[in-house]
């Protein structure tokens, strides 16, 4: 059980680094939501280890990292984790390209929830929904493949 987290947490560390990694201006607009994608992956492959609580804690870290209102990403990632747990048995049957389309929708929902709650709390939010979702969907097959091989290598 603990062994799994030894693999899961470092992948989230990498995702958090990628989330703030400096990139060219244009790429910034389609920066994939690495943390959300990593969460989806772990919920997908081991739903008994990764879940809402993991989403909540990673969301808190992401909040501090981005300087957002504390709890904003925590709430959105928890909802995302819940959605994935509902969808995971269906999603496992898809190939990665089909999953990519679903990722587009899921990340879009996650960003939408974040945008809504942010605009309720602070009066204005980051309304960039489309391009980060597209970026995430495009990167998904690669990221999925990478995480999958990591998982198999460490047998987590």
């Amino acid at each position, binding site marked *: 059980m603990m062994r799994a987290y030894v693999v899961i947490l470092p992948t989230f*560390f990498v995702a958090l680094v990628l*989330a*703030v*990694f400096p990139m060219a201006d244009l790429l910034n607009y389609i920066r994939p939501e690495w943390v959300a994608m990593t969460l989806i992956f772990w919920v997908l492959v081991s739903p008994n280890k990764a879940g809402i609580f993991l989403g909540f804690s990673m969301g*808190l*870290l992401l909040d*501090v*990292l981005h300087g957002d209102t*504390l709890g904003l990403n925590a709430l959105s990632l928890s909802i995302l984790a819940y959605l994935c747990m509902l969808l995971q048995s269906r999603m496992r049957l898809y190939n990665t390209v089909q999953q990519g389309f679903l990722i587009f929708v899921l990340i879009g929902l996650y960003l939408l929830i974040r945008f809504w709650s942010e605009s309720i709390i602070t009066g204005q939010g*980051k309304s960039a929904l489309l391009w980060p979702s597209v970026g995430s969907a495009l990167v998904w097959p690669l990221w999925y493949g990478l995480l999958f091989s990591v998982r198999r290598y460490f047998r987590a």
Partner: protein
Amino acid sequence: MLADQYLAPIASVRSTLGYLIVPVQWVSSIPGRLGLWAEESAMSHSSLLEDNNRLRLESLVLKQKVQQMIALRAENNRFRELLNTSEQLDDKILVAELIGVDPDPYTHHIIINKGASHGVFVGQPILDAQGLMGQVIDVLPYTSRVLLVADSNHAIPVQVNRNGVRAIAVGSGRLDELNLIYVPDTADIKVGDELVSSGLGSRYPKGYPLGEIIKVEHDPGQPFAYVKAKPSAYLDRSRYVLLVFSMESELPKAVAIQEPES
């Protein structure tokens, strides 16, 4: 989330989580530091010598100016005493290094390598060698987040150096542009005027340069003049920034007493 907005103890949760974030920020700043290191170590001997000479000359000139400053400051303080204002011009300053830029393309935040453990506080003004850059909005143990003046959520009270006309400079979301809002058509503002912080609102200290007016347009259809300024700080280039600890954040009395302009 509501708790973060309205409860104070959450700040300690945030700063505790801040410790966990330190390695993430450190790793993500590696490429930048690597680039700087490569640049420094690949520099030729002659260009280093050249740099050294230039800096020595510059330091000489600055030292001469400081000598002048001492006399001027004493004189200034005497005059201020005559005017019964207790404002000091001296501010304490801490140098910080920029370690990150917020990846969100819709905001202009930077991350600096000084935090709560160095005495940084929320609302603290940040300068670079050319002028005002912004203010601290979020303090973590070892880093803090700075809102730049060019962010569209940022506004700063300014005055024109030439005649003291007051205005509010709002960020435009572009790094090379600020908008002056609520400027009457009759206000005496011209292209090329220097803007300095006015110290009103008691957040920024008085008298630091902010920018230069680059465009003034009078549109008869609009209630106010359309004024644009260019920030004098190198918002996208400065690597080292100065944190100002202004002990006296007192309102400049002479300005505060005047009637606000209609």
